C-alpha cells in the first residue's frame, strides 16, 4: 500500500492532516513531517527524510506540502536518497487537505503510486460544500455615506 508524508510548517497542522486522513482511511500509513526540531514553525529536510524512511515498507510514497519552503526542504531530503529510493516517491503539488484525503482513500484500495498521485491532483477540483458557486446575489449592504469632514480651520 502507498503511504503519505505530510510536510507542513507547523507540527500541529501536519498532525491535524494525519488525524483527518486516519479517520477516512485508517489502514493507510501516513507520517507527519511538520515544524522544526525545536518546535518552531518551519520545514526541515531531516524531518522529511525521517518520515520517508519510516515508510520504507510502503509500496511507494506520496509527499504532500503546505507552502513555500516545504518544497525546498523536501527536495533536499530527496537529494540524499539513492536512485531506487527516489523512484518510489512522488512529490505532489496538490492542495494539502484535499489531496491528502483523496490520495489516502484511493491508496486504501491498494492502487499504485501513479494512481494515488493522480487522485491527489484531483484535489484542485474538490467541491467545497454547496456554496462553491455563489449566486449572483448583489450585495444588499449599502455604503453609509459618511458626512464630509468639516473643513479645517
Amino acid at each position, binding site marked *: 500500500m502507498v503511504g503519505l508524508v505530510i510536510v507542513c510548517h507547523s507540527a500541529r497542522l501536519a498532525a491535524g492532516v494525519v488525524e483527518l486522513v486516519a479517520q*477516512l482511511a485508517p489502514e493507510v500509513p501516513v507520517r507527519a513531517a511538520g515544524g522544526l526540531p525545536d518546535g518552531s514553525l518551519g520545514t526541515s529536510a531531516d524531518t522529511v527524510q525521517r518520515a520517508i524512511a519510516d515508510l520504507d515498507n510502503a509500496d511507494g510514497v506520496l509527499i504532500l506540502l503546505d507552502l513555500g519552503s516545504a518544497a525546498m526542504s523536501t527536495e533536499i531530503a530527496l537529494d540524499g536518497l539513492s536512485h531506487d529510493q527516489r523512484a518510489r516517491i512522488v512529490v505532489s503539488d496538490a492542495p494539502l487537505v484535499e489531496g491528502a484525503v*483523496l490520495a489516502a482513500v484511493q491508496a486504501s484500495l491498494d492502487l499504485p503510486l501513479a494512481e494515488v498521485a493522480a*487522485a491527489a491532483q*484531483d*484535489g484542485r477540483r474538490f*467541491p467545497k460544500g454547496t456554496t462553491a458557486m455563489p449566486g449572483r446575489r448583489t450585495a444588499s449592504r449599502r455604503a453609509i455615506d459618511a458626512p464630509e469632514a468639516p473643513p479645517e480651520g
Partner: protein
Amino acid sequence: MAEPDGSGPAGQARPVEATVVLRNQAGLHARSGAALVKTAARFDARVTLQLKAQSANARSLMDLLRLGARQGDGIQITATGPDATAAVEAIAALMEHGFGEE
C-alpha cells in the same frame, strides 16, 4: 448476502440496478464517500452511481463528491461483473443506513 435468484454466471453482461434515496443529513461527502468507495472495492464488480445526468465510478472518491448528492436525492446504483448483485446490495444497504451517520 446475495439473493440466490440474482446471481447469474460469472461476468454476466446484464447490469444489476437499484435506486436508493440518500438518508443521512450530510449527503455524499468525504466520510460517507470514503465508506462507499471501500464498500465498492470489496466486490469484483464495476459499480456506477448516477444522479440525474451525472454518473460516478463508485471506487473514486472524487467522482462521488462531484455528484453533489444531498439528503433526499435518489441515486441509481448500477453494477456489472461477477459480484454485481452483492455489490449493489451492500452499497444500497450502506446508503439506506445513512452510512452509520444521522
